[in-house]
Protein backbone atom coordinates (compact mmCIF):
# COMPACT_ATOMS: atom_id res chain seq x y z
CA UNK A 1 0.00 0.00 0.00
CA UNK A 2 1.44 3.32 -0.98
CA UNK A 3 -0.56 5.30 1.54
CA UNK A 4 -3.95 5.55 3.13
CA UNK A 5 -6.94 6.33 0.95
CA UNK A 6 -8.15 9.90 1.17
CA UNK A 7 -11.84 10.33 0.62
CA UNK A 8 -12.11 14.09 0.99
CA UNK A 9 -12.36 14.45 -2.80
CA UNK A 10 -15.67 12.61 -2.55
CA UNK A 11 -17.02 14.91 0.14
CA UNK A 12 -15.93 18.04 -1.74
CA UNK A 13 -17.69 17.00 -4.94
CA UNK A 14 -20.63 15.14 -3.47
CA UNK A 15 -23.32 17.34 -5.00
CA UNK A 16 -21.72 17.09 -8.42
CA UNK A 17 -21.70 13.29 -8.12
CA UNK A 18 -25.35 13.25 -7.21
CA UNK A 19 -27.00 15.72 -9.57
CA UNK A 20 -24.34 17.10 -11.90
CA UNK A 21 -24.51 20.78 -12.75
CA UNK A 22 -28.21 21.12 -12.01
CA UNK A 23 -29.71 23.69 -11.70
CA UNK A 24 -26.98 25.55 -13.60
CA UNK A 25 -27.10 22.98 -16.39
CA UNK A 26 -28.78 19.71 -17.27
CA UNK A 27 -29.24 17.01 -14.68
CA UNK A 28 -26.17 14.83 -14.26
CA UNK A 29 -24.54 12.31 -11.99
CA UNK A 30 -26.68 9.85 -10.08
CA UNK A 31 -29.85 11.81 -10.90
CA UNK A 32 -29.24 11.35 -14.61
CA UNK A 33 -28.38 7.68 -14.10
CA UNK A 34 -31.74 7.08 -12.41
CA UNK A 35 -33.56 9.13 -15.06
CA UNK A 36 -31.98 7.07 -17.87
CA UNK A 37 -32.71 3.81 -16.06
CA UNK A 38 -36.34 4.61 -15.20
CA UNK A 39 -37.26 5.99 -18.64
CA UNK A 40 -35.56 3.08 -20.43
CA UNK A 41 -37.24 0.62 -18.09
CA UNK A 42 -40.73 1.96 -18.69
CA UNK A 43 -40.23 2.15 -22.46
CA UNK A 44 -38.65 -1.29 -22.68
CA UNK A 45 -41.46 -2.77 -20.57
CA UNK A 46 -43.90 -1.86 -23.33
CA UNK A 47 -41.38 -2.71 -26.03
CA UNK A 48 -40.73 -6.09 -24.47
CA UNK A 49 -44.44 -6.74 -24.05
CA UNK A 50 -45.10 -6.00 -27.71
CA UNK A 51 -42.10 -7.96 -28.95
CA UNK A 52 -42.92 -10.88 -26.67
CA UNK A 53 -46.54 -11.05 -27.82
CA UNK A 54 -45.48 -10.74 -31.46
CA UNK A 55 -42.92 -13.52 -31.07
CA UNK A 56 -45.72 -15.83 -29.97
CA UNK A 57 -47.99 -14.91 -32.85
CA UNK A 58 -49.96 -17.57 -34.72
CA UNK A 59 -48.73 -16.13 -38.01
CA UNK A 60 -45.26 -17.35 -38.99
CA UNK A 61 -44.87 -14.28 -41.18
CA UNK A 62 -44.84 -12.19 -37.98
CA UNK A 63 -43.08 -14.69 -35.75
CA UNK A 64 -39.99 -15.36 -37.82
CA UNK A 65 -38.88 -11.76 -38.49
CA UNK A 66 -39.60 -10.76 -34.89
CA UNK A 67 -37.60 -13.67 -33.48
CA UNK A 68 -34.80 -12.96 -35.94
CA UNK A 69 -34.76 -9.35 -34.80
CA UNK A 70 -34.79 -10.27 -31.11
CA UNK A 71 -31.97 -12.79 -31.48
CA UNK A 72 -29.91 -10.32 -33.48
CA UNK A 73 -30.19 -7.64 -30.82
CA UNK A 74 -29.44 -10.17 -28.06
CA UNK A 75 -26.36 -11.41 -29.91
CA UNK A 76 -24.72 -7.98 -29.93
CA UNK A 77 -22.90 -6.20 -27.15
CA UNK A 78 -24.90 -3.32 -25.69
CA UNK A 79 -22.11 -0.98 -26.75
CA UNK A 80 -22.63 -1.91 -30.40
CA UNK A 81 -26.38 -1.32 -30.09
CA UNK A 82 -25.74 2.14 -28.62
CA UNK A 83 -23.24 2.94 -31.39
CA UNK A 84 -25.74 1.84 -34.03
CA UNK A 85 -28.35 4.14 -32.48
CA UNK A 86 -25.77 6.92 -32.44
CA UNK A 87 -25.31 6.51 -36.20
CA UNK A 88 -28.75 5.58 -37.36
CA UNK A 89 -31.01 7.90 -35.40
CA UNK A 90 -29.69 11.17 -36.82
CA UNK A 91 -29.60 9.61 -40.30
CA UNK A 92 -33.16 8.32 -40.05
CA UNK A 93 -34.66 11.35 -38.36
CA UNK A 94 -32.68 13.85 -40.38
CA UNK A 95 -31.69 15.96 -37.39
CA UNK A 96 -29.22 15.79 -34.52
CA UNK A 97 -30.36 13.80 -31.54
CA UNK A 98 -29.18 14.63 -28.01
CA UNK A 99 -26.88 11.92 -26.68
CA UNK A 100 -29.08 11.09 -23.72
CA UNK A 101 -31.98 10.27 -26.05
CA UNK A 102 -29.68 8.14 -28.19
CA UNK A 103 -28.67 6.23 -25.11
CA UNK A 104 -32.27 5.82 -23.98
CA UNK A 105 -33.20 4.44 -27.41
CA UNK A 106 -30.24 2.06 -27.39
CA UNK A 107 -30.94 0.86 -23.85
CA UNK A 108 -34.64 0.50 -24.63
CA UNK A 109 -34.03 -1.55 -27.76
CA UNK A 110 -31.52 -3.81 -26.06
CA UNK A 111 -33.58 -4.31 -22.91
CA UNK A 112 -36.81 -4.85 -24.88
CA UNK A 113 -35.20 -7.84 -26.56
CA UNK A 114 -34.41 -9.34 -23.15
CA UNK A 115 -37.77 -8.33 -21.69
CA UNK A 116 -39.49 -10.07 -24.60
CA UNK A 117 -37.93 -13.33 -23.41
CA UNK A 118 -39.23 -12.72 -19.89
CA UNK A 119 -42.70 -12.02 -21.28
CA UNK A 120 -42.56 -15.18 -23.38
CA UNK A 121 -41.55 -17.28 -20.40
CA UNK A 122 -44.29 -15.73 -18.28
CA UNK A 123 -46.97 -16.34 -20.89
CA UNK A 124 -45.83 -19.86 -21.71
CA UNK A 125 -45.89 -20.67 -18.00
CA UNK A 126 -49.65 -20.20 -17.83
CA UNK A 127 -51.38 -23.58 -18.35
CA UNK A 128 -53.03 -23.98 -21.75
CA UNK A 129 -56.23 -24.91 -19.96
CA UNK A 130 -56.75 -21.25 -19.12
CA UNK A 131 -56.84 -20.32 -22.80
CA UNK A 132 -59.08 -23.27 -23.63
CA UNK A 133 -61.51 -22.31 -20.87
CA UNK A 134 -61.49 -18.70 -22.02
CA UNK A 135 -62.22 -19.64 -25.64
CA UNK A 136 -64.99 -21.97 -24.58
CA UNK A 137 -66.72 -19.16 -22.69
CA UNK A 138 -66.83 -17.18 -25.91
CA UNK A 139 -63.82 -14.88 -25.55
CA UNK A 140 -61.80 -14.31 -28.68
CA UNK A 141 -58.06 -15.16 -28.80
CA UNK A 142 -56.82 -11.65 -28.11
CA UNK A 143 -59.37 -11.17 -25.33
CA UNK A 144 -58.20 -14.38 -23.69
CA UNK A 145 -54.65 -13.07 -23.82
CA UNK A 146 -55.52 -9.63 -22.53
CA UNK A 147 -57.96 -10.54 -19.75
CA UNK A 148 -56.92 -14.03 -18.66
CA UNK A 149 -53.35 -14.90 -19.54
CA UNK A 150 -51.45 -11.65 -19.16
CA UNK A 151 -52.75 -10.71 -15.69
CA UNK A 152 -51.70 -14.09 -14.35
CA UNK A 153 -48.44 -14.07 -16.29
CA UNK A 154 -47.48 -10.64 -14.96
CA UNK A 155 -47.12 -12.01 -11.47
CA UNK A 156 -44.43 -14.47 -12.60
CA UNK A 157 -42.66 -11.82 -14.61
CA UNK A 158 -42.31 -9.20 -11.88
CA UNK A 159 -39.13 -10.52 -10.15
CA UNK A 160 -37.46 -10.93 -13.56
CA UNK A 161 -38.50 -7.40 -14.48
CA UNK A 162 -36.87 -6.05 -11.33
CA UNK A 163 -33.69 -7.98 -12.12
CA UNK A 164 -33.72 -6.46 -15.60
CA UNK A 165 -34.11 -3.01 -14.03
CA UNK A 166 -31.00 -3.69 -11.94
CA UNK A 167 -29.13 -4.61 -15.13
CA UNK A 168 -30.40 -1.37 -16.68
CA UNK A 169 -28.99 0.67 -13.82
CA UNK A 170 -25.61 -0.94 -14.42
CA UNK A 171 -25.90 -0.53 -18.18
CA UNK A 172 -26.49 3.23 -17.91
CA UNK A 173 -22.77 3.44 -17.15
CA UNK A 174 -22.19 2.85 -20.88
CA UNK A 175 -23.80 6.22 -21.57
CA UNK A 176 -20.44 7.67 -20.58
CA UNK A 177 -18.92 6.41 -23.80
CA UNK A 178 -21.13 8.64 -25.96
CA UNK A 179 -20.67 11.63 -23.70
CA UNK A 180 -23.64 11.60 -21.35
CA UNK A 181 -22.78 13.00 -17.92
CA UNK A 182 -24.18 10.27 -15.77
CA UNK A 183 -22.52 8.94 -12.64
CA UNK A 184 -19.62 7.14 -14.34
CA UNK A 185 -18.80 10.09 -16.56
CA UNK A 186 -18.95 12.47 -13.63
CA UNK A 187 -16.48 10.21 -11.86
CA UNK A 188 -14.02 10.29 -14.75
CA UNK A 189 -14.42 14.06 -15.04
CA UNK A 190 -13.55 14.53 -11.37
CA UNK A 191 -10.74 12.03 -11.74
CA UNK A 192 -9.31 13.98 -14.67
CA UNK A 193 -9.60 17.20 -12.71
CA UNK A 194 -8.11 16.07 -9.40
CA UNK A 195 -5.74 13.54 -10.94
CA UNK A 196 -4.60 11.75 -7.81
CA UNK A 197 -7.66 10.10 -6.29
CA UNK A 198 -8.85 7.50 -8.82
CA UNK A 199 -9.02 4.71 -6.27
CA UNK A 200 -11.26 6.64 -3.89
CA UNK A 201 -13.48 7.93 -6.68
CA UNK A 202 -14.10 4.58 -8.27
CA UNK A 203 -14.56 2.81 -4.97
CA UNK A 204 -17.16 5.46 -4.07
CA UNK A 205 -18.96 5.12 -7.41
CA UNK A 206 -18.89 1.33 -7.15
CA UNK A 207 -20.39 1.73 -3.68
CA UNK A 208 -23.20 3.95 -4.94
CA UNK A 209 -24.10 1.50 -7.71
CA UNK A 210 -23.83 -1.36 -5.25
CA UNK A 211 -26.20 0.19 -2.72
CA UNK A 212 -28.72 0.96 -5.47
CA UNK A 213 -28.54 -2.41 -7.22
CA UNK A 214 -28.35 -4.47 -4.05
CA UNK A 215 -31.48 -2.75 -2.73
CA UNK A 216 -33.44 -3.64 -5.84
CA UNK A 217 -31.99 -7.16 -6.02
CA UNK A 218 -33.05 -7.81 -2.43
CA UNK A 219 -36.49 -6.41 -3.23
CA UNK A 220 -36.72 -8.76 -6.22
CA UNK A 221 -35.87 -11.74 -4.01
CA UNK A 222 -38.50 -10.67 -1.48
CA UNK A 223 -41.04 -10.28 -4.29
CA UNK A 224 -40.25 -13.72 -5.60
CA UNK A 225 -40.91 -15.24 -2.20
CA UNK A 226 -44.11 -13.32 -1.61
CA UNK A 227 -45.52 -14.05 -5.04
CA UNK A 228 -44.77 -17.76 -4.88
CA UNK A 229 -46.49 -18.07 -1.50
CA UNK A 230 -49.70 -16.81 -3.06
CA UNK A 231 -49.52 -19.44 -5.76
CA UNK A 232 -49.55 -22.40 -3.40
CA UNK A 233 -53.20 -23.32 -3.87
Amino acid at each position, binding site marked *: *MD*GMLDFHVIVDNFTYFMIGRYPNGPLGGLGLTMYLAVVSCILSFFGGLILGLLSLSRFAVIRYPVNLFINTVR*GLPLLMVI*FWMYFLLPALLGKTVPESQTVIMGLTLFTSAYMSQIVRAGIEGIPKGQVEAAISTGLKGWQAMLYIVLPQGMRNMIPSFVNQFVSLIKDTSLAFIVGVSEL*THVGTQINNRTMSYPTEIFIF*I*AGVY*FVLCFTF*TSWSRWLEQRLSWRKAI
Partner: protein
Amino acid sequence: MLKYHFDWSIITSGKYFDWLVSGVKITLELSVVGIIGAFILGLIIAVLKMSHYRPLRWLASAYLEFFRNTPLLIQIFFWYFGSYKILPTAVNDWLNNTNFEFAAAAIALTIYTSAFIAEDIRSGILSIPKEQMEAARSAGFSYLRSMQYIILPQAVRITVPPLVNQFLNLAKNSSLAMTIGVMELTYQARQVESYSFKGFEAFTAATVVYLVLSVSITALVDVYNKKVLNPHRA
Protein backbone atom coordinates in the same frame (compact mmCIF):
# COMPACT_ATOMS: atom_id res chain seq x y z
CA MET B 1 -29.14 8.24 -45.88
CA LEU B 2 -29.41 8.53 -49.65
CA LYS B 3 -26.38 10.77 -49.78
CA TYR B 4 -24.21 8.09 -48.21
CA HIS B 5 -21.93 6.31 -50.64
CA PHE B 6 -21.50 2.69 -49.61
CA ASP B 7 -18.07 1.21 -50.16
CA TRP B 8 -17.92 -2.34 -48.91
CA SER B 9 -14.45 -3.05 -50.30
CA ILE B 10 -12.77 -1.26 -47.44
CA ILE B 11 -13.75 -3.93 -44.99
CA THR B 12 -12.88 -6.92 -47.13
CA SER B 13 -9.26 -6.08 -47.90
CA GLY B 14 -6.57 -3.56 -47.19
CA LYS B 15 -5.45 -1.99 -43.97
CA TYR B 16 -8.92 -1.47 -42.51
CA PHE B 17 -9.60 -5.15 -42.92
CA ASP B 18 -6.33 -5.90 -41.11
CA TRP B 19 -7.35 -3.61 -38.26
CA LEU B 20 -10.68 -5.39 -37.91
CA VAL B 21 -9.00 -8.80 -37.98
CA SER B 22 -6.56 -7.81 -35.27
CA GLY B 23 -9.52 -6.53 -33.29
CA VAL B 24 -11.21 -9.92 -33.57
CA LYS B 25 -7.99 -11.57 -32.39
CA ILE B 26 -7.78 -9.38 -29.30
CA THR B 27 -11.46 -9.92 -28.52
CA LEU B 28 -10.97 -13.68 -28.68
CA GLU B 29 -7.81 -13.51 -26.58
CA LEU B 30 -9.58 -11.48 -23.91
CA SER B 31 -12.56 -13.85 -23.96
CA VAL B 32 -10.46 -17.01 -23.66
CA VAL B 33 -8.20 -15.65 -20.93
CA GLY B 34 -11.25 -14.31 -19.15
CA ILE B 35 -13.32 -17.46 -19.25
CA ILE B 36 -10.49 -19.66 -18.01
CA GLY B 37 -9.75 -17.33 -15.11
CA ALA B 38 -13.43 -16.79 -14.39
CA PHE B 39 -14.12 -20.52 -14.32
CA ILE B 40 -11.32 -21.22 -11.86
CA LEU B 41 -12.26 -18.28 -9.66
CA GLY B 42 -15.96 -19.11 -9.93
CA LEU B 43 -15.31 -22.69 -8.90
CA ILE B 44 -13.42 -21.54 -5.82
CA ILE B 45 -16.18 -19.10 -4.82
CA ALA B 46 -18.88 -21.71 -5.43
CA VAL B 47 -17.10 -24.18 -3.16
CA LEU B 48 -16.66 -21.47 -0.51
CA LYS B 49 -20.35 -20.62 -0.71
CA MET B 50 -21.30 -24.21 0.04
CA SER B 51 -18.86 -24.60 2.88
CA HIS B 52 -19.91 -25.67 6.37
CA TYR B 53 -18.24 -22.63 7.96
CA ARG B 54 -20.35 -19.51 8.09
CA PRO B 55 -17.48 -16.97 7.73
CA LEU B 56 -16.43 -18.63 4.45
CA ARG B 57 -20.02 -18.65 3.24
CA TRP B 58 -20.42 -15.00 4.19
CA LEU B 59 -17.17 -14.09 2.41
CA ALA B 60 -18.35 -15.81 -0.75
CA SER B 61 -21.77 -14.10 -0.52
CA ALA B 62 -20.15 -10.68 -0.08
CA TYR B 63 -17.92 -11.32 -3.10
CA LEU B 64 -20.87 -12.41 -5.22
CA GLU B 65 -23.16 -9.54 -4.20
CA PHE B 66 -20.49 -6.89 -4.65
CA PHE B 67 -19.24 -7.91 -8.08
CA ARG B 68 -22.68 -8.66 -9.48
CA ASN B 69 -24.18 -5.35 -8.37
CA THR B 70 -21.48 -3.02 -9.70
CA PRO B 71 -21.21 -2.17 -13.39
CA LEU B 72 -18.45 -3.85 -15.34
CA LEU B 73 -17.31 -0.47 -16.68
CA ILE B 74 -16.62 0.80 -13.15
CA GLN B 75 -14.70 -2.37 -12.37
CA ILE B 76 -12.59 -1.93 -15.50
CA PHE B 77 -11.90 1.69 -14.57
CA PHE B 78 -11.03 0.71 -11.02
CA TRP B 79 -8.46 -1.87 -12.12
CA TYR B 80 -6.98 0.42 -14.77
CA PHE B 81 -7.00 3.80 -12.99
CA GLY B 82 -7.31 3.06 -9.34
CA SER B 83 -5.71 -0.25 -8.50
CA TYR B 84 -2.18 1.04 -8.09
CA LYS B 85 -2.93 2.43 -4.65
CA ILE B 86 -3.99 -0.87 -3.19
CA LEU B 87 -1.65 -3.25 -4.96
CA PRO B 88 1.88 -3.86 -3.72
CA THR B 89 4.67 -2.05 -5.59
CA ALA B 90 6.13 -5.21 -7.10
CA VAL B 91 2.81 -6.08 -8.71
CA ASN B 92 2.43 -2.53 -10.03
CA ASP B 93 5.88 -2.68 -11.65
CA TRP B 94 5.17 -6.04 -13.25
CA LEU B 95 1.81 -4.85 -14.54
CA ASN B 96 3.27 -1.67 -16.02
CA ASN B 97 5.86 -3.67 -17.92
CA THR B 98 3.30 -5.89 -19.57
CA ASN B 99 0.30 -4.80 -21.58
CA PHE B 100 -1.44 -3.01 -18.72
CA GLU B 101 -4.63 -2.17 -20.61
CA PHE B 102 -5.18 -5.79 -21.56
CA ALA B 103 -4.30 -6.98 -18.04
CA ALA B 104 -6.67 -4.55 -16.34
CA ALA B 105 -9.51 -5.44 -18.69
CA ALA B 106 -8.78 -9.16 -18.31
CA ILE B 107 -8.78 -8.92 -14.51
CA ALA B 108 -12.02 -6.94 -14.43
CA LEU B 109 -13.76 -9.27 -16.90
CA THR B 110 -12.50 -12.35 -15.04
CA ILE B 111 -13.72 -11.20 -11.64
CA TYR B 112 -17.06 -9.91 -12.97
CA THR B 113 -17.82 -13.12 -14.88
CA SER B 114 -16.60 -15.35 -12.05
CA ALA B 115 -19.44 -14.04 -9.86
CA PHE B 116 -22.02 -15.21 -12.41
CA ILE B 117 -20.22 -18.48 -13.05
CA ALA B 118 -20.11 -19.22 -9.31
CA GLU B 119 -23.90 -18.95 -9.19
CA ASP B 120 -24.26 -21.22 -12.22
CA ILE B 121 -21.90 -23.82 -10.78
CA ARG B 122 -23.72 -23.68 -7.47
CA SER B 123 -27.11 -24.27 -9.06
CA GLY B 124 -25.61 -27.08 -11.12
CA ILE B 125 -24.31 -28.79 -8.01
CA LEU B 126 -27.47 -28.15 -6.01
CA SER B 127 -29.57 -29.70 -8.77
CA ILE B 128 -27.96 -33.07 -8.14
CA PRO B 129 -30.32 -34.93 -5.77
CA LYS B 130 -28.87 -35.11 -2.30
CA GLU B 131 -29.45 -38.86 -2.31
CA GLN B 132 -26.34 -39.05 -4.50
CA MET B 133 -24.22 -37.51 -1.76
CA GLU B 134 -25.86 -39.70 0.88
CA ALA B 135 -25.20 -42.84 -1.17
CA ALA B 136 -21.61 -41.79 -1.80
CA ARG B 137 -20.97 -41.09 1.88
CA SER B 138 -22.54 -44.36 2.91
CA ALA B 139 -20.32 -46.18 0.41
CA GLY B 140 -17.31 -44.79 2.26
CA PHE B 141 -16.30 -41.73 0.19
CA SER B 142 -15.21 -38.66 2.12
CA TYR B 143 -16.94 -35.33 1.39
CA LEU B 144 -14.24 -34.21 -1.02
CA ARG B 145 -13.98 -37.57 -2.78
CA SER B 146 -17.77 -37.75 -3.16
CA MET B 147 -17.66 -34.34 -4.80
CA GLN B 148 -14.76 -35.37 -6.99
CA TYR B 149 -16.06 -38.75 -8.23
CA ILE B 150 -19.84 -38.59 -7.88
CA ILE B 151 -21.31 -35.10 -7.66
CA LEU B 152 -19.09 -32.89 -9.78
CA PRO B 153 -19.02 -35.12 -12.89
CA GLN B 154 -22.81 -35.03 -12.97
CA ALA B 155 -22.93 -31.33 -12.16
CA VAL B 156 -20.48 -30.46 -14.94
CA ARG B 157 -22.78 -31.95 -17.59
CA ILE B 158 -25.62 -29.72 -16.41
CA THR B 159 -23.45 -26.64 -15.97
CA VAL B 160 -22.00 -26.66 -19.51
CA PRO B 161 -24.81 -24.67 -21.18
CA PRO B 162 -24.80 -21.83 -18.60
CA LEU B 163 -21.00 -21.77 -18.75
CA VAL B 164 -21.02 -21.45 -22.51
CA ASN B 165 -23.59 -18.65 -22.19
CA GLN B 166 -21.26 -16.88 -19.79
CA PHE B 167 -18.47 -17.23 -22.35
CA LEU B 168 -20.75 -15.51 -24.84
CA ASN B 169 -21.53 -12.76 -22.32
CA LEU B 170 -17.83 -12.37 -21.68
CA ALA B 171 -17.10 -12.01 -25.39
CA LYS B 172 -19.78 -9.34 -25.66
CA ASN B 173 -18.66 -7.57 -22.49
CA SER B 174 -15.10 -7.46 -23.83
CA SER B 175 -16.33 -4.61 -26.02
CA LEU B 176 -16.15 -2.41 -22.90
CA ALA B 177 -12.39 -2.83 -22.84
CA MET B 178 -12.23 -0.28 -25.65
CA THR B 179 -12.78 2.46 -23.09
CA ILE B 180 -9.30 1.96 -21.67
CA GLY B 181 -7.66 1.51 -25.05
CA VAL B 182 -7.67 -2.22 -25.59
CA MET B 183 -7.74 -2.55 -29.36
CA GLU B 184 -10.47 -5.13 -29.58
CA LEU B 185 -13.15 -5.38 -32.25
CA THR B 186 -15.41 -2.48 -31.24
CA TYR B 187 -12.41 -0.19 -30.80
CA GLN B 188 -11.12 -1.10 -34.26
CA ALA B 189 -14.55 -0.56 -35.76
CA ARG B 190 -14.55 2.96 -34.34
CA GLN B 191 -11.00 3.49 -35.61
CA VAL B 192 -11.99 2.46 -39.11
CA GLU B 193 -14.98 4.76 -38.86
CA SER B 194 -12.95 7.78 -37.78
CA TYR B 195 -10.24 7.21 -40.40
CA SER B 196 -12.42 6.39 -43.37
CA PHE B 197 -15.82 7.89 -42.45
CA LYS B 198 -17.36 4.61 -43.58
CA GLY B 199 -19.05 4.01 -40.25
CA PHE B 200 -21.88 1.91 -41.62
CA GLU B 201 -19.56 -0.63 -43.26
CA ALA B 202 -17.23 -0.79 -40.29
CA PHE B 203 -19.96 -1.36 -37.75
CA THR B 204 -21.70 -3.84 -39.99
CA ALA B 205 -18.48 -5.86 -40.12
CA ALA B 206 -18.16 -5.83 -36.34
CA THR B 207 -21.86 -6.66 -35.95
CA VAL B 208 -21.52 -9.62 -38.30
CA VAL B 209 -18.56 -10.98 -36.34
CA TYR B 210 -20.41 -10.73 -33.01
CA LEU B 211 -23.52 -12.31 -34.52
CA VAL B 212 -21.57 -15.17 -36.06
CA LEU B 213 -20.01 -15.81 -32.67
CA SER B 214 -23.38 -15.63 -30.86
CA VAL B 215 -25.33 -17.72 -33.31
CA SER B 216 -22.71 -20.46 -33.61
CA ILE B 217 -22.25 -20.74 -29.85
CA THR B 218 -26.01 -20.72 -29.21
CA ALA B 219 -26.46 -23.40 -31.86
CA LEU B 220 -23.75 -25.50 -30.22
CA VAL B 221 -25.53 -25.18 -26.87
CA ASP B 222 -28.81 -26.28 -28.48
CA VAL B 223 -27.11 -29.29 -30.02
CA TYR B 224 -25.52 -30.09 -26.67
CA ASN B 225 -28.89 -29.85 -24.94
CA LYS B 226 -30.50 -32.20 -27.41
CA LYS B 227 -27.72 -34.76 -27.65
CA VAL B 228 -26.26 -34.84 -24.17
CA LEU B 229 -28.87 -33.62 -21.70
CA ASN B 230 -32.04 -35.01 -23.26
CA PRO B 231 -30.96 -37.80 -25.56
CA HIS B 232 -33.97 -39.97 -24.91
CA ARG B 233 -36.65 -37.35 -25.67
CA ALA B 234 -39.08 -38.63 -28.27
